[in-house]
C-alpha cells in the first residue's frame, strides 16, 4: 500500500503541466498528533503531494516506462498553514526533461490562494543508475498511482459524453 497525498487530478496536459487537489480532513490520523489540539498539515506532506503530482506528470511524459525518483527538493517555501476543511491545490510544470532527469516548478495553493512554492528534481533511475540493483518491474508507478490519472481521464470522457448528448 502507498500513502497517496492527492485526491484527484483536475488538469493534466501531457509533458507540460498537471494540477491536483487534496481535501484536508480531520479524520486523517496524523492530524491528531500534528499538533494535539492544533491540527495543521505538515509541510513535508505538502512536498509529498507536489512530488506525487509532478512525479506522475514526469512519468506520463515517458509513458511510465521509467522509474521516476524524487532526487532533490530544490525549493520548498511555505507562507501559510493548511488546516482541516481546506482544499490544497498543487500546480506543477515541467521545466526540463531528458533521459536522465526532469526538473519541475510548482505552486501550492490553499482555497485558491497561493501559499507555497515547491521545485523538484526527479531522476530517471533506469537511465541514471545502471549500477544499482533495481527490480525489473516499474516499482514507482504502481496500479494505485496510474489509477489516479485514469480517474481524471475517465472524468474527461464522461464530460465529453455529456456534451455530446446535449
Amino acid at each position, binding site marked *: 500500500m502507498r500513502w497517496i497525498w492527492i485526491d484527484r487530478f483536475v488538469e493534466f496536459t501531457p509533458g507540460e503541466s498537471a494540477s491536483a487537489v487534496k481535501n484536508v480532513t480531520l479524520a486523517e490520523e496524523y492530524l491528531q498528533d500534528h499538533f494535539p489540539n492544533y491540527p495543521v498539515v505538515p509541510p513535508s506532506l505538502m512536498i509529498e503531494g507536489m512530488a506525487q503530482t509532478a512525479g506522475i506528470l514526469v512519468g506520463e511524459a515517458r509513458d511510465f516506462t521509467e522509474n521516476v525518483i524524487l*532526487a*532533490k527538493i*530544490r525549493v520548498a517555501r511555505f507562507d501559510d498553514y493548511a488546516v482541516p476543511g481546506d482544499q490544497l491545490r498543487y500546480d506543477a510544470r515541467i*521545466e*526540463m526533461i*531528458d533521459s*536522465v*532527469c526532469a*526538473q519541475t516548478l510548482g505552486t501550492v495553493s490553499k482555497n485558491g490562494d497561493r501559499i507555497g512554492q515547491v521545485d523538484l*528534481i526527479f*531522476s530517471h533511475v533506469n537511465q541514471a543508475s545502471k549500477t544499482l540493483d533495481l527490480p525489473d518491474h516499474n516499482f514507482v508507478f504502481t496500479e494505485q498511482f496510474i489509477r489516479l490519472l485514469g480517474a481524471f481521464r475517465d472524468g474527461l470522457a464522461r464530460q465529453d459524453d455529456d456534451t455530446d448528448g446535449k
Partner: protein
Amino acid sequence: MSGTHEEVYDKVREVLCDALGVDDDEVTPETTLQGDLGAESIDFLDIVFRLEKTFEIKIPKGELFPDDIINNPEYVDGDQMTRAGLDKLKAAMPHADFSQFEKEPRISTLPDLFTVHTIVNYVETKLAAA
C-alpha cells in the same frame, strides 16, 4: 547578460548557496564543491540549471562537468588518470586550474578540480562568447 568579475563571482556564490544550502561565508574562490561544500551528483544538475537561469546562458551536457571523460574506464589506471585522459580532460575544461592535479593525477583528487573559481571561469568564458 554580462558583468564584472566581482558581479559574476557574487552571483555564482549565491547560486551555490541556494543549491547546496550553505552560508555565503563558506564559499571562497578555492572552495571545492564536493569536498568542502558536500555537493552530490544531483546537485551538479541543479547547479547547471541555476547557472543557466541566473546568467541566461545555455550549458550543454558535459561541458561544465565533463562526466563522460571522468567516468570513462578507458582513462583510468588504478587510482591514476591516464595521460590520454588527462589531455582529454584539460582540453574539455579550459576553465579549470590543473596545476596541482597535473602533478599527481589521481582519480580520488579529481573532485578538487571543481572549485568555485572553476565555475566562475566557466561562466565568464560563456558570457564573453555570448
